[in-house]
């Protein structure tokens, strides 16, 4: 009896307090936007780049559903652990990754870290331009046109002198990472098989150790890489995050990991029909690749979506990886401005590095006879091999009481961080040593 008037009162409130309700709705929308637009989501979706998507797709095309699907999910869980540390370091110390290493460990370690980063970033950027070139090639765009688009995009990011503007440009592009979910839909995967492979990690791949190791290392490098640490820590500082924003930063990083895991797994699933139809991928290595190979199986629409997805994956990574190089160089050169909030006139080194490294990567892709596919397949491997050093510094710094105070790593974060560093080091070393021994005459 009592509930009737209360409900009626509540309903009355709903109809008469519409502005209040609208305001609450807008606030919820703003919170959601804050969670979905931020360095964590950009780092994770930025790492779902050209070589990463090609790596997931190669795993799906080579072995079908099975071990690699849950393995990819596990790498995203690992990515959350390390990226959360990077975000926390940036928010609490107000300093970027390169800047902290220079100040706490000295110039030698600082330059070694920045050197590693710039080397892996340049090689990765080359692969991003390759991905854009392959994707645009599907629609008939010539190589020079694809390279020009890639460089213009990075230059557009520098134009405007506002971090928030650059972040919105990246977030707008990142939405199209979801095109891979569309391609997976066209591939008509069996839901029961997908669930079974995630639950049982089987069937195990029937492959030579070198091939298996290459895909394990390549999939790790597709998710956990040095540039992401530099980028998320520096972008968190550039965004103006402080210790008060840690909760939102964690939500943003977790949202990025979940979204990137969904689209990464979608790229894997999208390519599994190539395994079930026994398609020999070697004939597509120098052409338009997966999109071309998938066309007769999933149709022109699905193949076109895959090509569009590759363009997007390359494009967002061009922005974020160029930015991570610019942050690193800008942070270590004293007096050089280091922010998207500064104009190119006030931070010439920062913006020059941002655009210059993109131009350099584009120029390599246009070199006649450059081994583009070999570079694309090896980019993730190099990132995995160099990652342990970056992880060790990350662990030391996030346990540094002098700069982190009460925000140092917890016991479980340290255990997980150490386990990730050891596993990444073991996988990278096993691949490199095995490959070296096989290559010896």
């Amino acid at each position, binding site marked *: 009896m009592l509930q009737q008037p209360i409900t009626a009162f509540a309903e009355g409130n709903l109809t008469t307090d519409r502005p209040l309700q609208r305001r609450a709705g807008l606030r919820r929308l703003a919170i959601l936007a804050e969670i979905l637009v931020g360095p964590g989501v950009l780092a994770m979706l930025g790492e779902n780049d050209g070589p990463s998507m090609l790596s997931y797709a190669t795993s799906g095309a080579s072995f079908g559903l099975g071990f690699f699907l849950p393995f990819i999910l596990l790498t995203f869980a690992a990515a959350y652990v390390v990226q959360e540390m990077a975000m926390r370091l940036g928010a609490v110390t107000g300093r970027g990754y390169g800047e902290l290493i220079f100040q*706490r460990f000295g110039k030698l370690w600082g330059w070694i870290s920045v050197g590693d980063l710039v080397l892996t970033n340049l090689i990765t950027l080359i692969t991003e331009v390759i991905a854009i070139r392959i994707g645009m090639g599907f629609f008939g765009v010539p190589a020079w046109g694809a390279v020009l688009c890639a460089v213009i995009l990075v230059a557009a990011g520098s134009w405007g002198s506002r971090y928030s503007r650059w972040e919105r440009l990246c977030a707008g592009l990142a939405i199209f990472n979801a095109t891979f979910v569309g391609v997976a839909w066209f591939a008509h995967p069996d839901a029961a098989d997908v669930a079974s492979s995630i639950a049982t990690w089987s069937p195990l791949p029937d492959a030579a150790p070198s091939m298996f190791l290459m895909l394990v290392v390549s999939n790790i490098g597709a998710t956990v890489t040095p540039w992401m640490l530099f980028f998320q820590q520096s972008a968190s*500082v550039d965004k103006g995050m402080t210790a008060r924003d840690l909760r939102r930063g964690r939500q943003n990083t977790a949202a990025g990991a979940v979204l990137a895991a969904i689209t990464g797994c979608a790229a894997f699933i999208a390519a599994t029909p190539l395994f079930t139809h026994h398609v020999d991928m070697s004939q597509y290595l120098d052409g338009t690749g997966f999109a071309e190979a998938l066309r007769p199986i999933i149709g022109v629409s699905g193949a076109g979506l895959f090509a569009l997805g590759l363009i997007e994956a390359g494009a967002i990574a061009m922005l974020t990886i160029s930015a991570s190089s610019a942050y690193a160089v800008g942070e270590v050169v004293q007096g050089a401005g280091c922010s998207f909030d500064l104009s190119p006139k006030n931070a010439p080194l920062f913006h020059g590095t941002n655009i210059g490294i993109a131009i350099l990567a584009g120029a390599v892709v246009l070199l006649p006879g450059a*081994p583009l596919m*070999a570079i694309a397949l090896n980019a993730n491997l*190099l990132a995995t091999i160099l990652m*342990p*050093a970056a992880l060790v510094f990350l662990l030391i710094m996030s346990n540094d009481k002098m700069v982190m105070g009460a925000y140092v790593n917890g016991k479980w974060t340290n255990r997980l961080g150490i386990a990730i560093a050891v596993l990444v080091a073991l996988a990278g*070393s096993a691949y*490199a040593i095995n490959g*070296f021994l096989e290559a010896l005459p």
Partner: protein
Amino acid sequence: MNNRDLPPLPPMVLSARAQTGLIALRVFLGVITVMAIFTFLHGLPG
């Protein structure tokens, strides 16, 4: 706005063991990187 104008932090004092560990890790990773580059170059066509 970001807070880039913070004063520099003092260098961290690392024990001799920690220094040696870091150098050993870096040398090891350097060797592994050279091996991977060798394998990459060896696998190039032609």
